[in-house]
């Protein structure tokens, strides 16, 4: 079974992101970048499937600037066999990413696409679902457990109020949650080996995909600063403030 795993280069989770003063976007010019943590889980799961003899090849794909090669190299150091970068400086939105992935599925013919349930930069949580719709494939989203069988997979999904166990047909799109596994530490010799693994660079146009943004962002601003608290003297005063000042009850 061949697996396609999508990995996104995002601002590192330790970075405290602020918006640009002119409100045109987040200020990430010099921020440290890393692999989206949810995608790390996706790669880890793919590697475990390969180690368990259930997957035969793992192709890591990313899209965006040339620097996304580093993210693909990390995926290969974790165990992906080869990589594809769809290089573009366009602002990529979930629909465009889903279309590119669909084209890559046509090119690579995997039995499953694994990706994070969302990326920690825009928190969209859309790409996997859109991809499944475009492909007409089954989808297993928010996975905390994955068991791959013959032509099907048993998945446990993290849903509101509990866990849901489903059996889905393969091929499928699988989006993963953090509880699925704990990604491994990359081994030094594997970093060196990753450098020698094949990494193909193509353009969206090569796949015949139009990645132009469909959504326009109007403004970015920091969340309002938290005000200092006060002490109330009575419960009545608290209720009054919650009702009239905070307007929450």
């Amino acid at each position, binding site marked *: 079974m061949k697996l396609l795993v999508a990995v996104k280069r995002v601002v590192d989770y330790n970075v405290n992101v602020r918006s640009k003063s002119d409100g045109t976007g987040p200020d990430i010019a010099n921020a440290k970048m890393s692999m989206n943590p949810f995608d790390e889980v996706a790669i880890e799961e793919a590697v475990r499937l390969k180690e368990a003899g259930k997957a035969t090849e793992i192709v890591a794909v990313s899209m965006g600037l040339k620097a996304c090669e580093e993210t693909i190299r990390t995926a290969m150091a974790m165990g992906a066999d080869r990589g594809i970068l769809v290089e573009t400086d366009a602002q990529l939105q979930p629909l465009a990413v889903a279309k590119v992935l669909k084209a890559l599925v046509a090119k690579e013919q995997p039995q499953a696409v694994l990706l994070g349930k969302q990326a920690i930069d825009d928190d969209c949580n859309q790409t996997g679902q859109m991809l499944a719709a475009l492909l007409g494939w089954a989808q297993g989203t928010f996975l905390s457990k994955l068991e791959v069988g013959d032509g099907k997979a048993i998945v446990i999904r993290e849903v509101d109020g509990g866990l849901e166990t489903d059996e889905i047909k393969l091929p499928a799109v699988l989006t993963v949650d953090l509880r699925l596994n704990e990604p491994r*530490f990359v*081994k030094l010799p594997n970093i*060196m080996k990753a450098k020698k693994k094949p990494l193909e660079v193509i353009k969206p146009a090569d796949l015949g995909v139009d990645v132009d943004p469909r959504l326009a962002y109007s403004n970015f601003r920091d969340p309002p600063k938290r005000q200092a608290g006060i002490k109330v003297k009575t419960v009545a005063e608290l209720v009054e403030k919650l009702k009239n000042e905070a307007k929450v009850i």
Partner: protein
Amino acid sequence: MPSYNAPVRDMLFVMYDVLNMDAYKDLEGFGEATPDVVSAILDEGAKITQEVLQPINLSGDEEGCHLANGVVTPPKGFKEAYKQYIEGGWGGLTGDPEYGGQGLPYVLGVAMNEMCCSANFGFSMYPGLTHGAIDAIEQHGSKEQQEMYLPKLISGEWAGTMNLTEAQAGTDLGLIRTKASPQPDGTYLVSGTKIFISAGEHDMSENIIHLVLARLPDAPTGTQGISLFIVPKFLVNPDGSLGARNKVVCSRLEEKMGIHSNATCVMNFEDAVGYLIGQPNKGLRAMFTMMNAARLGVAVQGYSMSEVAYQNAVAYSKDRLQMRALTGPKAPDKPADPIIVHPDIRRNLLTARAFNEGARAMAYWTALQVDIARRHPDATERQKAEDLLGLLTPVAKAYFTDMGFLTSSMCLQCFGGHGYIREWGVEQFVRDARIAMIYEGANGIQALDLVGRKLPANNGRALMEVFFPEIGGFCEQAAADPELAPFATAVLGALEHLVDAGQWLMENGMKNRDNAGAAATDYLYIMALTTLGYMWIRQVKAAKAKLAAGEGDPQFLNSKVILAKFFVERMLPDTAAHLAKIKGGADTLMALPAEAF
């Protein structure tokens, strides 16, 4: 609980923007070390040190090591962390590819050592000592010994130690008594007691390869009669499998001030089977060739402690509200200002940081000399690098560890009373840092090594033909650049003090040796400050070039300029004081008779 964030950005800045490591890509091992690979290695190294080693630092300090029935158990979590470390292949970073290592530049090894040590000093010594054993066997072992021991030492499956010190033989190794008796089969039986053996015994690796200094029966007295032996904890069969337990045991663990998580052992050898390494009676020389590397490793320990202490002191100083700024409230909505507004807090923090970042640059520059000395095809370049390495090693070892202790303590000061309380973790950094001034050649000995051995070697070639032209030449060029001129002028001033001190030594140290002994530490400090100054100008130059090109983070790069100014205004002026002390000579120091003390 203290935390640690590996300063990967600064490491990359030093390697590529300051030292221009790209220019060495023809050297063996440097070709693979492209910036993207180095960046990936440092990121992953940061991850394992921050997420695996750092969390067991404080607990390891509190628990310490245990000895029962000759078996030493390191603190909880260490065995698992060691397993993860070696499975990750980190022990083989710089190891010979012929024996399974990655053969990467020594500079990278130093960076990894720095992260391990900042995250967990006590842990870092277990793989650290193994590197010492690897160096010794690589440089002095027979082909057979290399094939037998190197693969497993490089992989970390086996650990290594250095057994030098005995109760009566510390600094003066000529007093060693441990005996080695030759056997008909070509092996030796080693008997004696060694003390202060770091990582001497533990259960984290399958085997421990002890490198032991001992005397042959007919050996001359003193340092000319010492030989080096390999004494494995478990004897190794010809097929590489482990055989009988050798007669070397840990009889006691020392209770000590710091590095509690590292086992400091008394080792008893009773007719333990050993194998001679290198030539008979040339053991000390063999030890010394690997000591440059080991001493550079200890130098790194000095500023690594200061780095982690600094990071935690900054976090505390931004958070802790006490008093108002002298110029009026800076956080009027709060009951007091964060203490980082106070000049004296900043003096503590900036002294630590200007030292840390200067020392990091100097450590990597020194490590680069190790790479050049070992890998450059041109013999002249190799010799220049060796000369520089000879000078810089004792300077880095003594100055970095003296300062590392001092600045860790300055960082503790920012915490006020909480700094003295264990749970904040900063007092551990101060205690741990203290050992680095003592072991691997006490700092006073480093100063004597510099003044008595390294300066006069080859008629002063290292200083006159390499060090002065390198720093003087660079500063004179920099002085012509208006942006660098103020820094260059200051460092040229320090260089003059160094020349002046050298001349005084020539005139007064020969006729009265005590004058040289009395001047040694101050001379070493002038050389350290001058070299750090040189490193700071190179950092400013690199930062300004990046700013002009619109590359990099402006705040990070502008901070380099401010820190260089701080160094020049508040640290470099000490060279004048050291020069004045040197010129005081030895007379007063030696005036009191011993009984008057």
